[in-house]
């Protein structure tokens, strides 16, 4: 088999060929490493590529297979990992200066699961700093470009995870989704991405942004691969108190079964102001495809969805302000240059003393406080600081009830909306994002505009339900457009089957960006 075409194969196909002996894991891994070598300079999807390690792991898997030893579900298959997920002995940076040199002493539960499945961890992918953003531009370590148009963003925060699939640099990858961070980059890059039900996949080892919203999920180039990877990732973890203790369905078997009498809900509120006409057209067309497959499309309302963005940014920022308090320069991670800091402090004290400013002198930072202040000022980027400040404010005495408590109440109402909707329809269909991928730099100066890009995705996180993104068209600029399907809690199998039905009669998922 020619190595050039290996990256064209789906993960499911690659596994078949590895099992049949047509391909070795070393060949597969080398092929993807070659692709990375060839294209990642342009795309910059990866923060680190573990070439040596991946090849030696592949060699071990090949040996075991040749020796007739049992191997795992993903044996010999490369998987890219978003750099927000802890990998023992390998740096895990959150694309932040704060953790640039941080190496966790433990594996996240999903990494353990991938290793148990004999997957090959090929590298860590770029992201928005601490998963805060929708373009991957807030990464302080690299700028990832969209393979469909290198002048555009890959989406975010799991931008590297989606871009590496679009550029054929990995067959599978995992990301995290707090408000759309898997689905939106999947949509922008023309790949599949699934945010599981809250609690389906362990968060142990996922560096927290907003604990009650974060979920790890799979990205892939088709529904079968997505199902396969989810099956490996999902399952109860006693180390995560919020993990669901339920058996994992055989998604990879279920995915090929079409759904009879499917009812899709279309949310009235999702087709309002701000929705790009080409995105709207592509989504409408996708709905017609479902109708042609026998599905019923029904108009529904999620009346509280207009509050979703505000609710999301309060809850996410409040939790973030707390979760990121640990990065204080004391125990690990970035610390400001202490000698310089102390010298500055002494100079300031002298200056104040010589001017006789007793009060200011009394109020000056202790060295510890100055160390905290400077470490966090230097270690975090602007977007992270913005969210920490928003969250700190909203949790402060006198504001807590008006912001945080109220946001929790609205969150409940949003969940109630979904519960009511799912009594009428099986799944909810609509756009993932209001527009295709933005130009690099287009939104960086306007955080509010960027927050509004999360309009359709944050509700699934607030409600804790599952949702995925399926490629459903290309804009006139040749940019991918995604269809979002949302399902009731723990109904991932239905989402995957619906995505597979669509994929069976369309070819959007087979389109590849030019030049890759």
């Amino acid at each position: 088999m020619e190595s050039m075409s290996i990256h064209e194969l789906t993960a499911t196909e690659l596994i078949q060929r590895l099992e049949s002996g047509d391909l070795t894991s070393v060949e597969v891994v080398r092929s993807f490493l070659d692709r990375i070598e060839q294209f990642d300079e342009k795309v910059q999807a990866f923060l680190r590529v573990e070439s040596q390690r991946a090849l030696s792991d592949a060699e071990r898997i090949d040996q075991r297979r040749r020796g007739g030893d049992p191997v795992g579900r993903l044996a010999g298959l490369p998987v890219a990992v978003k750099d927000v997920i802890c990998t023992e002995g390998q740096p895990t940076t959150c694309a932040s200066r704060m953790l640039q040199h941080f190496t966790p002493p433990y594996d996240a539960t999903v990494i353990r699961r991938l290793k148990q499945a004999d997957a090959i961890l090929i590298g860590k992918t770029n992201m928005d700093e601490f998963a805060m953003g929708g373009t991957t531009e807030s990464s302080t370590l690299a700028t990832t470009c969209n393979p469909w148009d290198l002048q555009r963003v890959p989406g975010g925060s799991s931008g590297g995870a989606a871009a590496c699939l679009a550029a054929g640099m990995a067959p599978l990858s995992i990301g995290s989704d707090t408000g759309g961070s898997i689905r939106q980059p999947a949509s922008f890059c023309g790949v599949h991405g699934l945010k599981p039900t809250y609690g389906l996949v362990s968060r142990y080892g996922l560096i927290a942004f907003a604990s009650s919203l974060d979920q790890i999920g799979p990205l892939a180039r088709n529904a079968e691969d997505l199902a396969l990877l989810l099956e490996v990732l999902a399952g109860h973890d006693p180390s995560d108190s919020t993990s669901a203790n339920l058996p994992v369905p055989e998604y990879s078997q279920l995915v090929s079964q079409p759904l009879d009498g499917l009812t899709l809900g279309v949310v009235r509120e999702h087709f309002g102001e701000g929705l790009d006409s080409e995105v709207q057209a592509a989504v409408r067309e996708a709905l017609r495809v479902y109708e042609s497959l026998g599905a019923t499309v029904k108009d529904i309302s999620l009346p509280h969805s207009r509050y979703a963005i505000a609710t999301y940014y309060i809850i996410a920022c409040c939790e973030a302000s707390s979760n990121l308090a640990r990065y204080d320069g004391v125990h690990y991670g970035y610390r400001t240059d202490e000698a310089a800091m102390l010298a500055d402090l002494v100079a300031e004290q002298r200056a104040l003393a010589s001017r006789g400013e007793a009060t200011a002198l009394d109020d000056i930072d202790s060295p510890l406080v100055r160390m905290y202040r400077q470490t966090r000022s230097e270690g975090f980027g602007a977007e992270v600081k913005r969210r920490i400040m928003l969250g700190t404010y909203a949790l402060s005495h006198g504001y807590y009830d008006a912001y945080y408590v109220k946001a929790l109440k609205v969150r409940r109402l949003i969940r109630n909306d979904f519960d009511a909707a799912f009594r009428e329809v099986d799944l909810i269909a609509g756009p993932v994002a209001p527009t295709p991928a933005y130009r690099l730099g287009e939104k960086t100066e306007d955080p509010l505009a960027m927050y509004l890009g999360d309009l359709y995705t944050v509700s699934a996180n607030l409600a804790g339900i599952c949702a995925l993104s399926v490629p459903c068209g290309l804009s006139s600029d040749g940019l991918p457009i995604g269809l979002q399907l949302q399902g009731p809690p723990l109904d991932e199998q239905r989402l995957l089957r619906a995505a597979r039905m669509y994929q069976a009669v369309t070819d959007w998922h087979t389109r590849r960006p030019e030049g890759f």
Partner: protein
Amino acid sequence: MSDPSYEIVIGLEVHVQLQTATKLFCRCSTRFGAPPNTQTCPVCIGLPGSLPVMNRQAFALALKTAVALNCQIPGFTKWDRKQYYYPDLPKGYQISQFDLPMSQHGYLEINDAKGAFAPKRVGILRAHLEEDAGKSMHDELAGKADSRIDLNRTGTPLLEIVSQPDMRSPQEARAYLTELKLLLTYLGVSDCNMQEGSLRVDANINLHVATSQGTVATPIVEVKNMNSFRAVERAMAFEATRQFDVWKDTRIALGAPGGHKTTRGWDEQAQMTRPQRQKEESSDYRYFPDPDLAPVIVTDQQLDAVRADLGELPAALRTRLQTEWGIDAYDADVIVNQGRAFVDYFLALANISGDAKRASNWMQQDVLRVLNERALTIDLFPVSSTSLAQLLKTVQQGELDTSRARDVFNAMAESGDSMPQAMQSLGIQAVHGDELADLCRELLEANPSVVADVQAGKDKAIGALIGQAKRRNPNANPNQVRQLCLELIREQGSAQE
């Protein structure tokens, strides 16, 4: 002791380390004294991505304590993050409980057996679970300040027990702490070792001063750094006097300008409190529910099980010793305050010897003396209750006088020998009734003048015989010799009539 023109008002906050093998949210050991930072893991040192999982045993111990403190236990309780920055708090927040603690509105009864104050109920405002922080060790070399942090303690389960400001004297404060510690020890939920930090006390104290305009409250002072119950008592006494002096000087009342709450530290060496410098920082901890932990549901069945499993608590035990064993209140108090194992020893001793009063006296005087001298606990006391009961019976039957019995007891406690072994090695023999009667008859025959004196009503004359008896048989019990001689003389008298 107190000046009648003011009343002391004291409330106490006690942090108790619960006796679990592992920490509150991870599986690291809670053992004290290990080399720094050897009992840590990603969870308790707050590494990115780590998540807490509640230790059910810690919750069970907290529940047991709360029930024993007569608290109301809500069916739903949750975890909150208390947020502040300190180097020994690696997550930047402490997992604690804020607005829905696991228990509240309880009480603890305190009493003084000698009647130093009237028995009273001290209200418990709340008791909640939280994780401990680490330990900072500041190297205070001038110019080269260096701090080291030990995170072994980080995540150790603490129960914070907050009393109502119901104590009215330093003695009451001390009695509350003593009774609380005793209760915790009976429950087996904590070792209450203050030196190792398993029990820590902060106090809030102010005065209610009687003035011509009515009662005025003085500013509240929080006192920290008290390392023993005695220190608490002394610090409270010192503060009361100091606060009254300040009041007389300034007349600043609670809440008036300059009347805000302040913090002082107890200086054990100087026996005084000193102001602790606090930076003007707001105490806004930005509490919010910890999204990493599920709320805890407590069912009625669980509570019933806890109540059924509580065992006999000190207050009930004191009453039982009085009613069932005829021990007076003071003695019951002394015995019960020594702890459950001591009580069990006493009960066994009283039961076997059949003489609770004697058992109580021996326990309080002799057993306690040895335990104190040798810094032992009753479980390690070398004389079993059965052995000691044998000795008490021998004394009771008059076969050994108290002073000889004490020698035997000391030998038993020293060597761990049984009573016969100890007596043999001391050359002491129990004198049986017949043997003693023979001895007394011989003495009476040899001393007719003593007999005559006694018959003339001068019982004291017997004293002359006791010395002689002792010389003839050193094991003879003087009391018994006296009794027996008097009886024999009376028998003789009645026979002559």
